[in-house]
């Protein structure tokens, strides 16, 4: 609770769901930062990164139950490895490289439909087709659940469309079936090769009870 903001004709106490008075832009900014300005639910950008090194790590996940990631125009340095993601339980000092489960449907424009699945995977899921020739980019989005909840498994769903030797879509889901906090995400390749370029944005879905 706060009554530090100078509203007319008085300075009423402000809290989420109970704002009164007249607000200047600075008041709204200050109250929003203090989580005391009513703005029901939103997609909050946590960070956008442009790939400039071998991997892209997100080590600040904010405080959300559900996260949303977009990736676009991802270019890989090697022609034979897949774009992928992994989780960390130590803030990004290291990333877990075993014990994932996923189930992904792939759909090639040449009718090459099929399943990619397993219960002892080295990555949370794949995110796009191989290929690093000109215009062979990977694009898509991910929802994550319970990453920061130490009592629950961490889940995700993925949707992507990318270009390799052909164009191919993916949809699927993955889980790290270990009840622990996963407090960093790494975007990488299955072969340990670099992500040459591309943009990845991490959002949190804010909801108020």
């Amino acid at each position, binding site marked *: 609770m706060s009554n530090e903001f100078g509203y007319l004709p008085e300075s009423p106490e402000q809290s989420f769901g109970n704002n009164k008075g007249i607000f200047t832009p600075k008041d709204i900014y200050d109250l929003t930062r203090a989580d005391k300005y009513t703005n*029901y*639910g*939103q*997609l909050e950008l946590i960070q956008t990164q442009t790939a400039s090194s071998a991997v892209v790590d997100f080590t600040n996940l904010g405080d959300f*139950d*559900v996260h949303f990631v977009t990736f676009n125009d991802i270019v890989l340095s090697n022609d034979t490895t897949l774009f992928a993601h992994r989780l960390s339980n130590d803030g990004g000092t290291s990333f877990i490289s075993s014990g994932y*489960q*996923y*189930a*992904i*449907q792939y759909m090639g424009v040449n009718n090459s439909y099929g*399943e990619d*699945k*397993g*219960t002892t995977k080295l990555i949370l899921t794949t995110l796009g087709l191989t290929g690093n020739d000109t215009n062979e980019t990977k694009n898509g989005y991910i*929802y994550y*659940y*319970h990453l920061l909840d130490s009592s*629950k*498994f961490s*889940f*995700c*769903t993925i*949707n992507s469309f990318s270009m390799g030797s052909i164009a191919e879509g993916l*949809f*699927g*889901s*993955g*889980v790290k*079936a270990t*009840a622990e906090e996963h407090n960093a995400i790494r975007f990488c390749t299955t072969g340990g090769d670099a992500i040459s370029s591309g943009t990845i944005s991490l959002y949190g*879905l804010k*909801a*108020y*009870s």
Partner: protein
Amino acid sequence: MNLIQVATTTVTSAVSAVVLTGIDDDSVYMVTINNFFPDVDNKDPVTRVTVSGTAQSTSNYDRAIKILKANTSFGNVGNQNRSAFDVLTGAGTGTGEQNNAILYLYNFNNSSENSYITVQNTAINASSNHFGSMGGAVYTVQEAHDGISFSFSSDNIASGTFTLFKVVS
């Protein structure tokens, strides 16, 4: 894209159903579901449109879903004239067994159109296997729907957080 929260419910003690209402215009709406599981093992989630907050159980739901399974071959499920959308994974009470999903809701407020949903689901099912579902469903009754309800085929919801957002540009 931005989201405006319309309604949310977190279940912390058993309830028979969760109803999210507040759909009152022709926007696309989105529902997040997480940590959704029953109080009795091996139950099927039931999802229905609502009219004035009441779940509609007429046999006018059609679905088409790809069932994703980490441990075995995937499945295709297509049915017509069901009594609910039935787009989530069969649920249990074992460690980690739960549903998480994003639903998008289309045309719910439009009284002259069918009401559609799409689903992206990731789960641990009642046999402790990692399953997911991707697809869509439609309620083929042209009437306005003000919300969506969640329950199980029998018994109660033990846990879950359900949030309804309006999608705005």
